[in-house]
């Protein structure tokens, strides 16, 4: 059902995810040929006429300053806006991922396979039976890990209550994976929860909403593993303010052993978050952990933060909206570049006729125009890169501050108020290359057309 519904987007998907690579491959192929031509024609070739065509291309570039300038602007603005948009989106997602990893899930988690299917319902029956053994095994292999029990409950305070998700964390190992126990996160005189103590740590927004202060006592009513009601009475020793709005809004943390006893978990855990240092290669890392535990722990699976966060659910639909925008930006930019270039060359068919009438050979003319277009492409793209980088520097170093506007709003992304972009060299290189490619193709078409015509027709061409 869900897959059927998503069909319209499939149109965009190959473009976004594979298009960049295809463009890259075409570009490198093109560049290789170009270099070969340049080296052969300009340096090795002693034929002065052909060498001349390259020099002419270069001269043309500076002779028609106005035209070059206008075309460059078209390319530059297109590139600048494209890379900026892309960097902004990437930055947004990167920050969101970071906050998700540091405060909510860890970079990956080990879970029971069946738990994954029913994760939304926070079941207590599919667990990791021997979390301590697993953690020490992981530690031997250089992977820090901790254990948690995640369960749903209702918090009671004064004359009110609220449904919440409660994280039972192991204070001893939690900091190996999460960044909850830091000065930045703990507010004022908060003290991180201690093992074996009836203590709790809650998100700042939640505390404000319910009027809870440090030192207050709250009740968490939940069910044990077998389904009986139970109540945890806990002293609030810490209020945390993280960069993750979900934790601020609904995060409740209790010591693992307290929950373990109350929920009758017998030392089991619902998940074991691990700290895989290299987030960029998360899939590879996840696979490594998978193969490590495959033998001794059948039935357990490793889920990366991407599986846990996106997993084809919340974010994908928003990512689609963003991708649609990126595609539209790309289309406008591409149209701008091609159109200006096409026009510039079409206007010069007469000139091509003249060159031919004077005896210049077709390949020479072709190289002249390609080289000129490539030159315009390079200059335009460079200006675009500089412009884009300037715009991006602002959003990278300073960011756009939505504080006050957003308030304490949560909208799926684990982001707070200041939106920062990132540097995405991949897009920069590709945008740079593709625009040059576009410029060259756009000049190739009309110049080829002119070369196919009679010289007299060229001269008469309007």
């Amino acid at each position: 059902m869900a897959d059927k519904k998503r069909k319209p987007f499939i149109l965009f998907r190959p473009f976004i995810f594979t298009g960049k690579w295809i463009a890259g491959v075409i570009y490198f192929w093109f560049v290789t040929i170009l270099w070969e031509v340049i080296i052969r024609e300009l340096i090795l070739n002693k034929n002065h006429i052909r060498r001349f065509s390259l020099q002419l291309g270069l001269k043309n570039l500076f002779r028609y300053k106005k035209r070059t300038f206008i075309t460059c602007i078209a390319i530059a603005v297109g590139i600048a806006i494209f890379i900026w948009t892309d960097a902004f989106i990437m930055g947004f997602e990167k920050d969101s991922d970071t906050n998700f990893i540091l405060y909510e899930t860890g970079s990956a988690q080990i879970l029971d396979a069946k738990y994954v299917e029913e994760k939304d319902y926070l079941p207590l029956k599919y667990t990791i039976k021997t979390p301590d053994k697993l953690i020490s095994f992981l530690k031997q292999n250089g992977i820090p890990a901790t254990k948690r029990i995640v369960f749903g409950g209702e918090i009671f305070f004064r004359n009110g209550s609220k449904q919440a998700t409660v994280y039972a964390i192991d204070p001893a190992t939690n900091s190996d994976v999460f960044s909850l126990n830091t000065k930045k996160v703990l507010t004022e005189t908060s003290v991180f929860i201690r093992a074996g103590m009836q203590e709790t740590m809650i998100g700042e927004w939640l505390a404000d909403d319910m009027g809870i202060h440090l030192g207050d006592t709250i009740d968490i009513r939940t069910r044990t593993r077998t389904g009986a009601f139970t109540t945890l009475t806990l002293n609030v020793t810490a209020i945390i303010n993280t960069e993750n709005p979900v934790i601020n809004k609904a995060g409740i943390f209790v010591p693992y052993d307290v929950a373990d006893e109350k929920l009758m978990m017998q030392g089991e855990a619902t998940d074991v978050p691990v700290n895989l240092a290299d987030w960029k290669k998360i899939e590879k890392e996840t696979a490594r952990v998978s193969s490590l535990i495959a033998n001794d722990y059948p039935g357990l699976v490793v889920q990366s933060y991407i599986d846990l966060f996106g997993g084809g659910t919340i974010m994908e639909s928003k990512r689609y909206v963003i991708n649609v925008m990126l595609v539209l930006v790309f289309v406008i930019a591409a149209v701008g570049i091609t159109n200006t270039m096409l026009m510039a060359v079409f206007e010069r068919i007469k000139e091509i006729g003249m060159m031919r009438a004077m005896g210049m050979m077709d390949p020479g003319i072709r190289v002249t125009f390609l080289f000129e277009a490539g030159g315009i492409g390079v200059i335009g793209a460079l200006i675009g890169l500089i412009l884009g980088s300037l715009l991006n520097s602002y959003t990278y170093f300073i960011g756009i501050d939505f504080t006050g506007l957003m308030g304490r709003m949560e909208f799926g992304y684990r982001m707070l108020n200041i939106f920062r972009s990132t540097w995405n060299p991949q897009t920069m290189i590709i945008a740079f290359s593709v625009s040059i490619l576009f410029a060259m193709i756009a000049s190739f078409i009309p110049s080829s057309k002119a070369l196919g015509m009679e010289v007299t027709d060229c001269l008469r061409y309007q």
Partner: protein
Amino acid sequence: MKLYKIAFRNISRNKRRSILSGTAIAIAAMIITILISLYAGIGKDMKKNIYTVLTGHIRIRHNEYDVNEALNPLHLGIDNYKDVLERLENTDNVEAVNPRISFGTAFYGSPRLFLQDVKDWDRFITLLTSGNNPVFSFLKEKYLYVRERLARKGTQIPDIESIASNMDRMELGDVLYGINEVLERYVLYDPDRFAGISLSEETLAYTERDVPFEERILFNRLALQDAFPGLIIDNPRSGKLILGMGMGMDFQKDAGFMNLETKLESGGIPQSDREAREIILSSGLAKKLNASVGDRITISTKTKYMGMNGITVKVTGIVDLPVAMYNTRFFFLPLDTAQNLLKMDDSVIEILILLKDINKMNTTVSSIKNTLSSVGITNLDVRAWDTIGVYPAYILMLDIVGYYVALFFFLLGSTVIITTTIMVVYERMREIGTVAAMGMKGSQIVRLFFLESFFIGAIASIIGVLIGSGIVIPLGILGWDWSEGLESADFAMSSLLKPAWSLRNTIIIFVYSTAIASIASFFPARRAAKIQPVEALRAV
């Protein structure tokens, strides 16, 4: 000769150039049209989802409720709500009013059999009615006993004789209610009845001990599964915590708000009768619970007095709500059933109001305030929906992001248009020289180029916005389906997005694109007109 005629001729004379520059303008106009409609669609949809489901155009609550909202303070209700309702209905500009009680609850996996838990109803009914099987004979015997007991309490369930596989779901639900009562009270297992049936380990563990009352149904389900493989499925709710948002409301007054009646996927609207105890589930929640029309589910929640209360209600309908976040959580019940459950007596939490004319929001708010204070009701907070909680920020943010995006695209679109137009003018420098040499005045040249660009711009942007509208309008009618997963975000966006095409925006985009194209030609043409004809003629 008239200038505009020359302009037209120039345009048609050099078709290639006209088409090239036109294409740039048309594509820019098209993309801007699509984008703006898409964005306007999201905004409109979110606003509508907020005011029809959550706030109304105007919301009335107890004036201390908002501060304590996170605590679910049921005691801060509107006590004399019927009186208030009557006055509101008679206020000017009020289209519809609906009293509401919202409350949160959690469904912990119920072990009771739901209609969809039984895989093969034909077989189940044959077993039950034929009386050949010892297990089902026992079930039948107890069913009859339970039936009598329930009848004494005023609940009628069908007689064994009348049970047939062609019963409707509601009646079948009644039968299942009786069966669940049996399964909760009695233990089906008996070595004689289960002779020759191999039991699973889990079931065997139960046979070896005295099964406490609350675990009997678990035991019975397992035993049934062992004895009749394929008859019932594993409890799909087992161990799950399923959160729900209940909304007590007046279904008769729902028109204009959620229009639940039009969104029914199956079943009907509940009766407004305390004894009937009926509810509607959203389809996502129903799926999570594996519930269908005819099932009975138990809702337990905190009452006004902080105690716990539970009622068992019958599902009479399933609705499909457009917002994934609502559709996986909401269920709806008649106001009096909710009052009964929450021990709210005759009070409600909020009254939502829809207006005939939204532009008169402020006057209506103050006239409602006046009406209420004139009868001595001063403890109520009357608010326009765009001043409630996070919603103003939400909408503002939406608009601001919208402006940014629009600005961005206009900027990019403009560069494309400007570079193309400037290019055209510069390329024709020699032509300018010619016409200048032939005696055309500078101002005329400027006007000529301006007119040319204007015509090209106008035609191209018309084509552009038409193509854009051609893409957007059908999409707006059919809707564009996002994936389902907006569930956990605090985001009232429909899964089915309909771009909102508006004439106003389309005209603005048309005018803008045309204007940019015309203005872009102005400066280079003016410069060209100023230089000496000889210079212009020599230009390359």
